[in-house]
């Protein structure tokens, strides 16, 4: 599904990703954990080229996204992304937030887009909020709308960049529930998160990153139960 080869990313002289090689299989849920500043968000943002890549390759379904011939906007419709800060469009209603990319990018008719959007809102449990503006929603509701908006493009992969980190604790559950449901439906997902419970329960594989490298990766039970690397042990002892 996604194949990352020797990915490197620098901001000026600061090397954030030093050498990342990883494959993500179809229908797999990969959870990326690590201390802050380890480069996990940057890694995720390189997968849809929201962040430019300094060196290395990212292949999405065998298409090299850094290739100049590649239409990155087309690739991005296949790769949904959910942000820590939701990034809903405040000047559009909830329904319009979801239909805007369908109409402008996918060139769907308004009616078709709206009925699809309503189905998605039902899925995330927010049918009654279609006509309100995002400002009147709680954090958890905003994030569920953001997930619905990304799903509207019918992506093959979903990237989650700390989707629950900006939420009040009592709202984390409702967002994780939607993500869990998505995983059960067979969506390929890459999730950067601090929710270790979610990683254990939903993740097929957990990747521990530190200082721009993938230090260790394994099945959740293995990685949490029997971490091999010193830095993984140190990190897990601090957070568990």
């Amino acid at each position, binding site marked *: 599904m996604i194949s990352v080869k020797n990915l490197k990313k620098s901001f000026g002289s600061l090397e954030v990703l030093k050498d990342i090689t990883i494959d993500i299989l179809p229908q797999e849920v990969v959870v990326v954990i690590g201390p802050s500043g380890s480069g996990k968000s940057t890694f995720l943002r390189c997968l849809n080229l929201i962040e430019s890549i300094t060196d290395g390759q990212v292949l999405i379904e065998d298409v090299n996204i850094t290739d100049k011939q590649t239409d990155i906007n087309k690739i*991005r*419709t296949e790769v949904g992304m959910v*942000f820590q800060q939701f990034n809903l469009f405040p000047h559009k209603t909830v329904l319009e937030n979801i239909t805007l*990319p369908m109409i*402008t990018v996918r060139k769907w008719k308004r009616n078709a887009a709206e009925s699809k959007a309503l189905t998605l809102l039902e899925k995330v449990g927010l049918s009654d909020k279609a006509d309100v503006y995002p400002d009147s929603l709680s954090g958890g509701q905003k994030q569920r709308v953001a997930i619905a908006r990304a799903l509207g493009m019918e992506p093959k992969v979903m990237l989650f960049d700390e989707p629950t980190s900006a939420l009040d604790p009592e709202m984390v559950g409702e967002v994780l529930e939607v993500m869990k449901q998505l995983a059960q439906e067979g969506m390929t997902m890459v999730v950067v998160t601090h929710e270790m419970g979610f990683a254990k329960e939903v993740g097929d594989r957990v990747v521990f990153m530190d200082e721009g490298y993938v230090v260790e990766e394994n099945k959740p039970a293995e990685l949490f139960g029997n971490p091999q690397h010193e830095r993984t042990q140190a990190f897990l002892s601090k957070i568990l």
Partner: protein
Amino acid sequence: MSDFVMIIQEMLDTIGIDFRMDIVIDYLPFFLKGTLITIAVSAAGVIMGMILGLLVGMGKVAKLWIIRFPFICYINFFRGTPLLVQLFLIHFAVMPLILSETNTIASLVVTLSLNSAAYVAEIFRAGIKSIDKGQAEAAHSLGMNKIQVMRYVVLPQAFKRMIPPLGNEFIVLLKDSSLGAIIAAPELLYWGRAATGQYYRVWEPYLTVALIYLLLTLTLTYLLNYVERRLDTE
């Protein structure tokens, strides 16, 4: 003179204020004509200033230094020199190169547009910059191209934030159009000066002119507040 004006005149006379309503009434048609020209010149200045300002604003954020530089010079020149000096330069030096006859209104419109563009450019730039980067990132992540991101996501939000500073700019421009009187463009203040010359009176013409300007700016303020409220998403 109508009864109403007569009554006011009597009141003024009774309390001992030396103010001749008949001058105001006599000159009213000229003041109205001047007001229309003031409105037309300001509207033309605002529209051309906005278009030019958008271009200058985009030029100023160009990636290449060599493209950015002339726009920075433009903005610095028009913001850093007095409007009256710009008006003289354009009316007496630049316009004669382009037009064979002097046209004071054209000179005034050109000066106001060029000057306003420098301020509008900064307003546009600041407005676009004020929109959170996450908005564009989210739009890009959904597959929108640069133009779609600007058109559907960034500009509508930026525009809303630009209304108050743009409104201020419109009001400043409307008031600045009175400098046209100095090059004898027949706008509102020009007719005020004409009346002063004709009657050797200062209070009546200038106070009337001031009140008309006030009426125009207050109306504009009200309209802009209305637009701002309409665009509110609450």
